[in-house]
């Protein structure tokens, strides 16, 4: 840990700046463009995912420390379960609503 503390925290700065950038881009897309509602939702949803991943790696240390393997496995597991349950349910249950 000591060794890491002394170095200039370049990762944190990059993470902070790119988080800011992503936030402004998202706000810009939502407020300053005339894209359709659907496209805007898709774009800012995508940016939100990128930002969440960035936060996990830059600030929440998922890939550091003793438990990094466990943490990555847990997050992957959580994502898979969530995708199956939420996306799966929406897919299965959205029949008959588009006619």
């Amino acid at each position, binding site marked *: 840990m000591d060794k890491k503390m002394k170095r200039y925290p370049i990762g944190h700065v990059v993470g902070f700046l790119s988080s800011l950038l992503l936030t402004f881009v998202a706000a810009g897309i939502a407020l300053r463009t005339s894209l359709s509602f659907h496209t805007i939702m898709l774009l800012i949803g995508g940016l939100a995912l990128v930002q969440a991943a960035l936060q996990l790696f830059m600030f929440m240390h998922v890939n550091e420390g003793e438990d990094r393997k466990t943490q990555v496995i847990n997050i992957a597991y959580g994502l898979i379960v969530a995708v*199956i349950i939420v996306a*799966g349910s929406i897919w299965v249950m959205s*029949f008959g609503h588009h006619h």
Partner: protein
Amino acid sequence: MGIKWNEILITGDPLILGSQIAILLTMIGIVGGITYLKKWKWLWTEWLTTVDHKKIGIMYIISAVLMFFRGGMDGILMRVQTSRPEMEFLNAQHYNEIFTTHGVIMILFMAMPFLIGFMNLVIPLQIGARDVAFPQLNALSFWLFFCGAMLFNLSFVVGGSPDAGWTSYFPLAGKEFSPGIGNNYYAVALQISGIGTLMTGINFIVTILKMRTKGMTLMRMPMFSWTTFITSIIIVASFPILTVALALMTFDRLYGTHFFTLSGGGLDMLWANLFWLWGHPEVYIVALPAFGIFSEVIATFSRKTLYGYKSMVFSIVGIAILSMVVWVHHFYTMGAGPGVNSIFSITTMMIAVPTGVKMFNWLFTMRKGRIKMTTAMLWALAFVPCFVIGGVTGVMLGMGAADYQYHNTLFLVAHFHYVLIPAVVFAVFAGTYYWWPKMFGHMLNEKIGKWHFWLFVIGFNMTFMPMFFLGLDGAVRRSYTYSVESGYAPLFFVSFIGSIILALGFAAFCYNIYWSVRYADRNIPSDPWDARTLEWATASPVQHYNFAKLPEVKSMDAFWYMKKNNEGLTLKKEELEEIHMPSNSGLPFIMCVVFGISGFFLVFEWHIAAAVAAVGIFAGLIIRSFDYNDGFHVHKEEIEQTESAWRNGEGEVNRYVGKR
């Protein structure tokens, strides 16, 4: 609060009146018997407050046998009612209640606790640990399951049984169509025991990942440990879905929300979707540990290492993943469209691949083995052909287009009984015969065991085989009667006779337990089957600290290796050390009582009383948070005494020493 006093006790039905009297007499008998024998203190200190995984396992198994009896009685009543056309033994309402409780009890309060009982009993021993990772949580898991089971069983004498099927589909299960309190029992009792199961899942994941003894790598674990590990992961993935679905159901029924109702923008089929998102993995939660038991039994009695160990591991992982993505095959007829139904048909049929791999592995394990025809092995042998019938008809049902023909007929009923009985019931019987000496230090009678086996297997096939043909002829499930003109009568009668033979098989099992407890030879070695895994490397019944010295594992089939190479079997006095063990706690049992009272009030919709009782739950959580009891140490003298008592017996583990 609007207490409906007139609704509390069910009156007017002679069958239920008889049960009420029987339950009352049994309870008076138990209380009187314990008082007469002055066993209250013993019961409290040895069992109700125990955190010992072996005792918890035994309590799970005893509860499961009792629930097997209850669920079996429901099954017999159904077969009696349909034994002849236009029979008037049960009315439609009573029949609805009985098939509902039969399903719920057999899956949730028989199959699961039976298997979880074996997990508790065996897993810490197999991986060379002294207990599970969280012993007190384990006790709480058991008591919450027990609380849920008792609450659910109360329903048929107090307040009325749930009657919307074990799947409790909306809108039928909603307040609009089932205004009685029966389905409240379903929502609340399953919720309480489901929380217990979730805790078990977490507990066993941590136990298996963190508590393995030295040298016990994941790929050296016995197959039952592997299946338990994967099962625990499926539990953690799927039980929260049930928790949420049941909570939404409770809100709908008790507080007038509209998640699943027809009116107010509810989506009734969303219940079916959520139920089966949990329900299908649930099938594998009960099937995988059963496969594990068969793997142990077949390897032991073929006297060979399990064939294709690695492919077994990959198969169970594959089954676990696939089990999460096949749920729609339970409701193809909802009409989600060809896209959805096709995808789920493919994933469903894919499950046959890893299952087939396992089947062949078991057969190859037996090939050229020196097979011993013990009762445990007979169950494993009967499992193979019976389960294949269940599996093949499952693939038939799994094809979305074909399913429109089979759906909701007795063909389906026959299919899932052909899956669940050979896999789960045969497995728990095999496990009971196999591990009984580990639990109690004496064997079950092999001769009565063979009666049990043949009666049960013949009865099972006779009961359910006719249902395939009845189903193909169009007999629908859950129908309380049928006409003479339908022509179903002969096959239904065969099924009825089969169910009587099945019941005789179960009676033989109960008699076997009675006979063996009273008369079986107590002077048996700790390793009576010449087995392969670590649970047999210690005394039978197992001393409370499991191992005086934790074994070191050098290969798969660790105990077999120890016996063949004469390593680690003996114990020197200098090697003894004090052992740290967890203390007993009464809190889990008290939590069970508090959950039970609170749940009971909630069932009857006495909200204020339920809220007051629920304060007790939070009080329990707070007390537990400030519990600083770190357990106790077992002294060297005690260990020395215990160890010399069993190790020096004739024909003990010592017999392998110097045999080379």
